[in-house]
């Protein structure tokens, strides 16, 4: 199911589903402030609109997926891609991925996982749960350009 990407720092699944978007709106989730600033700049340089969140629960709030408000249209109209760090205290990126894929309103939105650690079982676990791509940190501009090119086609 998982196929290796052309560069050795990312892995993607073969069934890439996304919506057409002239200016993709990306939700970037990372507990590390420096990494948030970096991913935001990388995405903005690739002509994306960016919202950042510092943890899973805040991300779910933004997507309209918290238990208290199951507003079906709220998150859907906003976000074209979620990119999240794997290692976060509380809710991990994997757990966030699961919640997004389990929701009726957001399950079609591609989710990309980033990690500083190259652990094959972790990578496979994420891809099997429906992550579109797994990327190694630190991210480079070329990684993000590749990602957004795929997103905008």
């Amino acid at each position, binding site marked *: 199911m998982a196929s290796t990407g052309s560069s050795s720092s990312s892995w993607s699944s073969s069934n890439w589903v996304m919506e057409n978007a002239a200016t993709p709106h990306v939700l970037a989730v990372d507990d*590390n*402030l*420096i*990494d948030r*600033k*970096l991913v935001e*700049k*990388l995405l903005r*340089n690739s002509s994306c609109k960016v919202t950042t969140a510092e943890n899973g629960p805040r991300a779910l709030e933004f997507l309209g997926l918290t238990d208290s408000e199951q507003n079906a249209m709220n998150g859907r109209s906003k976000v074209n891609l979620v990119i999240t760090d794997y290692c976060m205290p509380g809710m991990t990126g994997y757990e966030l991925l699961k919640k997004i894929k389990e929701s009726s309103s957001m399950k079609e939105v591609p989710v990309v996982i980033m990690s*500083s650690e190259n652990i094959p079982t972790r990578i496979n676990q994420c891809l099997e749960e429906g992550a579109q791509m797994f990327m190694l940190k630190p991210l480079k501009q070329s990684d993000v350009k590749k990602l957004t090119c795929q997103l905008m086609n």
Partner: protein
Amino acid sequence: MDVVTQMQRQLIQYTSSLFQEGFLDDQFNQLQQLQDESNPEFVVEVVTLFFEDAERLLNELSKSLQVEQESIDFRKVDAQVHQLKGSSSSIGAQRVQRVCIAFRNFCEQQNVEGCLKSLQEIKQEYSLVKTKLETLFKMEKQLFAARGSISR
């Protein structure tokens, strides 16, 4: 050789030395490439965030390791080092990152002496790279000012 050319040369040499001595790696280049007219202070901003983050984490690590040896919470220490490793990696502070990796191994082994030694090493490496980067930024600022005063 005019002043601006001389300053340029010094800046290039200084930057080169930081890479050669392993203080910085390619990720720092990536940061510089991200800087543009829409965000001309990007590198300084990110590095400043790193300084603040690192100092906070080093304080927390000192506190975590100051307790009775038997009550050291290695998971907590490891989590803190993991954060510092991430930040240093993201800005290209290679030597700091490397000590973090060794530190994490000591945490896994629950090796108190190793942890204490690593903490000292990280403080040293952090202090070094901070000084070097501050010097680099100062040189850039001076060069920019010198260029500016000539073009008038």
